[in-house]
């Protein structure tokens, strides 16, 4: 690593960035290093109704699988680094440094760094619909799962045409995840979905966000038409559950045409996020070959910008996979170079009314970068990225409320200016 790219640890970053919340450095560090639970903590989580043992039949595999309701820090932000305990993720990860442990002492649970308890943590109950089945016998957790404890997860399907073409994004493990669903909701599937959602919403005070997620599907009269059709089916079903014309869900999807977006809006969509993933043009082409082929970086950018006219400021996001621009051999060699590029992209989008967000790149089983034994970006990179992106939200008076800290892993710093963001256009912005 170069002189400008020291891999500073938690304590060094606390000292270097006194204006950055220490608790959030811990949160970022938990994702980089990973978190496991002691046997005592697992027992405690079960006693508190925070750990559900899903049968093999529930999750479509031979063995049962523990599913965690989640843990959060004192400030209500989520303990990251526990992906194998959620249904959305595979089990293998490349982490960095010593793994944190959650252990329970006298009924209180703590995050331990080695033998030192560093933060008290709190468990979240697992969703009440886990373990229940629809009248048709479908496990409800298969129809609607959960990630951050207030966020419902609806996988429309986890096939992706880019994978089929062996042109998948190099960080992606999407089709290797626990639940497998092929494209094409039948009416019976939609009945299952509605029955599940009706049951989900009986859990008072639990839910505030839904994410609808699918892989890129190129088929249809026009490219992506069939993907759009699946979103329309699900949105229409959710409208029945909520009894409203609008569905307050976040929708992570491919880059659609204006006509396709209007179809989604008519179906009740209130938000939209086609993800750019990486800003630098050459790295985009290397890391996202499928998006490059169908139909290039500029097409994905234009789609996000056009969406602002349809859904409005503060209702459109694009996401960067923070750290992939440092993968080798083509990626940036220093934190400064990587951030200069990604924050340039983030500012471009923010100035056009598209809320930039970022996740922390994880090296997950099944992804190209995992098999290449790539190295994770330094913790300091993630700290500075979180800070830079939040500053842009403030500068451009742009909220990303539908990706707030409760349902997105790195939205925390926005909590400091959420009282003042109005989403009105300000000088310097173009949309």
């Amino acid at each position, binding site marked *: 690593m170069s002189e400008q790219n020291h891999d500073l640890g938690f304590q060094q970053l606390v000292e270097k960035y006194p204006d950055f*919340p*220490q*608790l*959030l450095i811990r949160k970022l560090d938990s994702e980089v290093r990973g978190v496991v639970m002691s046997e005592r903590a697992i027992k405690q989580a079960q006693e508190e109704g925070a750990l559900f043992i899903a049968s093999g039949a529930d999750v479509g595999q031979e063995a049962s699988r523990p599913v965690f309701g*989640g843990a*959060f820090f*004192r*400030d*209500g932000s989520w303990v990251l680094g526990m992906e194998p305990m959620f249904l959305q993720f595979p089990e293998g990860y490349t982490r960095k440094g010593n793994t944190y442990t959650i252990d329970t002492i006298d009924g209180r649970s703590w995050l331990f760094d080695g033998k030192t308890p560093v933060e*008290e943590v*709190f*468990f*979240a*109950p697992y969703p009440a619909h886990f373990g229940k089945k629809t009248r048709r016998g479908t496990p409800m957790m298969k129809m609607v799962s959960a990630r951050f*404890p*207030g966020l419902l997860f609806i996988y429309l399907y986890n096939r992706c045409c880019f994978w089929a073409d062996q042109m998948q994004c190099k960080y992606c493990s999407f089709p290797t995840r626990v639940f497998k669903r092929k494209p094409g909701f039948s009416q019976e599937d939609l009945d299952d979905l509605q029955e599940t959602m009706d049951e989900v919403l009986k859990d*008072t*005070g*639990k839910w505030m966000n839904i994410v609808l997620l699918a892989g890129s599907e190129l088929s249809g009269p026009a490219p992506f038409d069939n993907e759009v059709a699946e979103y329309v089916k699900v949105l229409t079903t959710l409208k029945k559950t909520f009894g409203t014309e609008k569905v307050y869900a976040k929708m992570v999807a491919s880059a659609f045409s204006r006509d396709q977006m209007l179809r989604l809006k008519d179906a009740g969509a209130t938000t939209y996020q086609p993800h750019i993933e990486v800003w630098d043009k050459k790295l985009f082409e290397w890391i996202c070959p499928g998006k490059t082929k169908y139909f290039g970086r500029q097409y994905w950018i234009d789609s996000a910008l056009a969406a602002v006219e349809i859904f409005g400021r503060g209702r459109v996001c694009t996401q960067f996979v923070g750290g992939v621009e440092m993968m080798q051999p083509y990626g940036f060699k220093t934190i400064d170079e990587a951030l200069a590029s990604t924050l340039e992209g983030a500012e471009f989008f923010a100035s056009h009314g598209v809320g930039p967000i970022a996740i922390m790149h994880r090296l997950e089983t099944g992804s190209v970068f995992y098999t290449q034994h790539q190295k994770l970006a330094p913790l300091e990179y993630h700290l500075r990225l979180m800070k830079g992106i939040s500053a842009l939200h403030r500068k451009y008076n742009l909220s990303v409320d539908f990706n*707030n800290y*409760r349902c997105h892993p790195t939205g925390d710093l926005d*909590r*400091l*200016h*959420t*009282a003042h963001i109005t989403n009105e256009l300000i000088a310097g912005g173009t949309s």
Partner: protein
Amino acid sequence: MDRLPQEALNLIKNSETIKILTTVDEDGNPHAAFREDLTVQDDGNLAFGEPFEGSQTNVNLVRSLWFDKKVELTLRDRSGTTFQIIGKPYRYAHSGPLFKKFYLAEREKRGADSELAGVWIIKPEEVRNETYDVRKKEEDEKHPFFRHFDRASVRKVKS
């Protein structure tokens, strides 16, 4: 600190007590808000619900938790008994049994379209009895030369 004095606990339990939370923003500007649902937890910590995620109070409390800053609660009943409690935000709960208890109470009180963003837990660090008679006695003992000569404790006034 040790547990809050019984008189302060009584004030918190009294539904007619005025309860005001004061926080400061990043520039030091104060912000005061009523906290009618303030309660004492079994462990001696204080808890209250926050209706709105985007309120100035909530933003200030997040900042206080992250940067180890203090907040202040003032309690005053109809008789004038007044206590000030200074403490630090320890936890913001938006999930789990404690949150649900406050959430259901808020819904019961304000109806079907009401909201509760979370529940704040404050660890008291200092408590002061600010009732007029108590403070007057303290001040007279500490600062006897800050009394006007018209006062009965300084000069005998002929009736």
